[in-house]
């Protein structure tokens, strides 16, 4: 019995690692269509990774061990996060070990390592990107925590699988505070994953970069791992969103066997396709904010999440 759950756990992580670049490719494709450009092929991220893995890595002379270890740390942290988030099944042995607050800690660890590695070389752009990343991160984290607290209050647990199970148990209950939490979560997702209102992932202008500026010194397999980790991060955030707001189809506790698993897989693919299109749509509608507007944007996300808590307390009856 426990062997099977471990196999499922492993399968979920492998699936997350495998289809995360596909999700990024799908978003890029949707964005290109919305901007009337001819889209890159769906498998472009895989080709990119393949190309990078076949190159020889170049390291700066001053690079320390930290710089070299960071890509592996990032990738490991994101893969572990994928193991905690119930994207297909809720009966995950690893998810019992760490709740959603530990998950945010995991993301924070990855962020600290990435920023330190960017500062490690000592170039101006890397340092600038690291500072901006830390600023965005420390403003986005409380907002994300508030969103999660909102869900915790509704279902009385801090573990994501329990939330999904709880939702399946009383399906009819739609809490109005969910609207606020969803809006705040979307804002945090865009900010945390270096998407458009805060950071443009496709920019070539170093002065406006946040995420890209930190990767300027990486090459070959290191760059491939970092890029893969960031697409995994986006995938993880999307799956957190599904677990919190659209938990339909996820195979809940006790639903063993092939059919629920297959349904969960189909539901996940469908939700990812819709979410990718929606993200591309939101991004195409918004212009990049000045970096000094970023605190304003994230403060709004935080306040909306707090508002959700208040509304929940008011309308609980």
């Amino acid at each position, binding site marked *: 019995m426990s062997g099977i759950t471990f196999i499922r756990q492993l399968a979920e992580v492998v699936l997350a690692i495998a289809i995360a670049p596909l999700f990024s490719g799908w978003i890029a494709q949707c964005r290109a269509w919305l901007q009337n450009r001819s889209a890159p092929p769906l498998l472009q991220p895989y080709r990119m990774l393949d190309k990078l893995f076949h190159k020889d890595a170049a390291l700066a002379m001053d690079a320390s061990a930290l710089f070299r270890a960071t890509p592996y740390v990032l990738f490991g942290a994101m893969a572990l996060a994928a193991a905690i988030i119930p994207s297909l099944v809720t009966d995950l042995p690893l998810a019992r070990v760490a709740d959603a607050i530990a998950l945010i800690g995991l993301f924070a660890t990855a962020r600290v390592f990435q920023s330190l590695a960017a500062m490690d070389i000592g170039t101006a752009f890397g340092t600038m990107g690291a500072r901006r990343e830390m600023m965005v991160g420390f403003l986005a984290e409380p907002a994300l925590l508030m969103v999660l607290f909102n869900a915790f209050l509704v279902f009385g647990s801090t573990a994501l699988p329990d939330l999904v199970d709880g939702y399946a148990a009383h399906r*009819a*209950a*739609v809490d*109005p*505070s969910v*609207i*606020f939490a969803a*809006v705040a979560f979307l804002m945090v997702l865009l900010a945390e994953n270096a998407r458009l209102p805060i950071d443009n992932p496709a920019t070539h202008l170093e002065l406006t970069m946040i995420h890209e500026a930190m990767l300027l010194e990486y090459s070959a397999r290191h760059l491939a791992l970092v890029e893969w980790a960031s697409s995994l991060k986006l995938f993880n955030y999307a799956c957190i969103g599904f677990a919190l707001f659209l938990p339909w189809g996820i195979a809940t506790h006790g639903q063993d066997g092939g059919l629920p698993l297959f349904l969960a897989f189909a539901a996940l693919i469908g939700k990812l396709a819709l979410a990718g299109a929606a993200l591309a749509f939101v991004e195409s509608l918004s212009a990049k904010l000045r970096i000094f507007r970023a*605190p*304003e944007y994230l*403060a*709004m996300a935080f*306040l*909306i999440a*707090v*508002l959700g808590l*208040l*509304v929940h*307390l*008011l*309308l609980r*009856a």
Partner: protein
Amino acid sequence: MPTSHLIAQVLNVLAAGLLLISFAMLSRRRTQRLITLLAWQGAILFLSTCLVAHSSGLSEIYYSAALTLMLKVIALPWILHRLIYQLGAQWDSEPLVNIPATMLVGLVLVIFAFGLAQPISMLATTITRHTLGIALAVILLAFLMMITRRKAITQVIGFLAMENGLFFAATSATYGMPMVIELGIALDLLVGVFILGIFFFQIREQFDSLDLHHLESLKED
């Protein structure tokens, strides 16, 4: 019974949407976006009024819902759009000082409104009584918007948003006001917006801008 429970839940969700739009209005700079948001607020109001009418079985609430649709979703936003087009103020944006601080004040207002409405809503018997706090919060947030804005048009938008909040409070606490009063208010609003539109042109002719700070001094220096 389950359907009325469901309706109450949908109403709660709509009320939450109303509050969310109020906060969005507080943080928008562009006048045109504000008008769009006002129209959305009217649409949510229309939906919630229809639901209240359906659940209470009072047919006259349908009339007031239709009035809301015509006036607040179609007529007033259209008039305002035309006004800012004629004034050449489509892309006007006003310098807002410190949006996070404004939002924090808004949050305090929401807490205040919720606390204030708690004992009142205990007395009400309608299925929507829990949304009274939200209605009160929408009114106070519109107040806050009128206080923090300086342009004449945005003040009018704040005024209309406040009326939306009052209307919502009326439907949620007592299933709406008598038809005569509602018609009177609707006419007042329409005429008010017309007159204020004329005022806009006068103000701009006098001061070459729509900034109300010019009205604060009695004489020109």
